[in-house]
């Protein structure tokens, strides 16, 4: 809802500057992007990853079990399950709400992690869907894009020295410079905010995963293994980067900047360890193992 208010405010500002046709175009573009991303985004993400759907437990029991168990723990319907042949260990979830969710795991991840770690990663991904992060980040991206677009239009206007005939007299060089700087910085600021939101949601997904599994050590151990892995990603796009468990493009995740979609791995692991230390009891029990060991 907040999104629409801000967008409406932006649209109003645009109409003041450019007149009505620009607002209509603005609105159509925005609505179009939102609709496409939210309805087809998960299919696009899966296609980009060249993923193959898993339709039954027999096809891939490890992944199926991890996803089904996490769906039960979250009280959500079972999402569609995909495996991507990418040897880089990573996973992502897509889908605008829990009823239309998609979870995709890379083969590299399956080869690297054991059962508890895989469950932790799948829990993190499903937490993204449960927290409606896909919707949130789509809106944030469109908003940031809209701000960038407006800033570009405005910068063109100033470049051509045009503008409406109602321009005040004596705008002055300083005024122009300030306008240019502001217009250049606006999309930057929008992107910084977008990345900051993304990092906050990553922490939230980690915490939600710890709550779903009641075993934060699983995800912490998985993140440790992922931090040590150097296999580069074969498929990855900026569009789905924020949905992945670790940042797939650039930077090993060891350091992060204000432009990272994910917080630094050490900090994520540290927070999970804190959660683990605060646990009263864990839920790891297995009576099928010999009692003597």
């Amino acid at each position: 809802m907040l999104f629409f208010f801000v967008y409406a405010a932006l649209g109003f500002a645009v109409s003041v500057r450019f007149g009505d046709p620009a607002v209509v175009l603005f609105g159509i573009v925005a609505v179009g992007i939102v609709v496409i991303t939210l309805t087809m985004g998960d299919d696009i993400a899966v296609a980009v990853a060249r993923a193959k759907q898993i339709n039954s437990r027999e096809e891939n029991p490890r992944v199926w079990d991890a996803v089904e168990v996490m769906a039960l723990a979250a009280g959500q319907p079972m999402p569609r399950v995909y495996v991507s042949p990418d040897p880089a260990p990573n996973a992502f979830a897509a889908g605008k709400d829990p009823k239309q969710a998609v979870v995709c795991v890379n083969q590299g991840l399956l080869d690297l992690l054991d059962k508890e770690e895989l469950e932790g990663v799948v829990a993190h991904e499903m937490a993204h869907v449960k927290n409606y992060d896909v919707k949130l980040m789509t809106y944030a991206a469109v908003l940031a894009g809209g701000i960038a677009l407006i800033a570009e239009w405005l910068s063109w206007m100033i470049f051509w020295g045009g503008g409406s005939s109602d321009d005040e007299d004596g705008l002055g060089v300083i005024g122009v410079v300030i306008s240019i700087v502001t217009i250049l910085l606006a999309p930057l600021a929008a992107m910084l905010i977008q990345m900051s939101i993304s990092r906050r949601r990553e922490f939230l997904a980690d915490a939600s995963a710890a709550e779903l599994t009641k075993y934060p050590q699983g995800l912490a151990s998985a993140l440790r293994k992922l931090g040590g892995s150097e296999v580069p990603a074969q498929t990855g796009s900026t569009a789905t980067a924020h949905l992945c468990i670790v940042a797939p493009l650039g930077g090993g995740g060891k350091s992060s900047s204000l432009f990272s979609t994910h917080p630094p791995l050490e900090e994520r692991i540290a927070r999970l360890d804190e959660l683990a230390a605060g646990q009263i009891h864990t839920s790891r029990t297995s009576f099928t193992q010999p009692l003597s060991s």
Partner: protein
Amino acid sequence: MIALIVIAAVILVLGLWFFSIYNRLVSLGVSADEGESEIDVQLKRRHDLIPNLVESVKGYASHERSTFEHVTNARAAAVNANGVAAQGAAEGELSQALGRLFAVAEAYPDLKANQNFLQLQGELTATEDRLQAARRFYNTTVKALNTACVTIPSKFVVPIANVSQREFFELDNPAEAAVPQVSFGS
């Protein structure tokens, strides 16, 4: 005139607030019901697997009668348990009995290589994972519901929403609960 508008606005806000609390309480109640029925689904799967499992172990270790009886009795008690607390206790007993059964199976390498036994063991493990997951969902929901029942302001809406606090589904950790049984003579 202004006063009327202000009063109307205040009533509207209070009404919306009340509805949102009511809806939240009722939703938690429905989710808890759903959680309970999901636990029942997994428990039934578990109970259905046990007779075949016992039979497959009996084929190799027929003299371990006390173990088999223990499992069968625990299973019967668990099937008949009513209510979440009783179910939790009975299922904990059953877990303990199953633990002993698998400990017995350790001593028979032929049994451990038997395909049927391995498949049943795999299915039981899968069921256990799902049972734990259903249990986590139920307990998380019940925690939220119980907290809402005792905190202000939701506790005032509770009688109207017709929800009440519920018991947690506790399964004792069988590894902690199991005590080595030493018996002299049979």
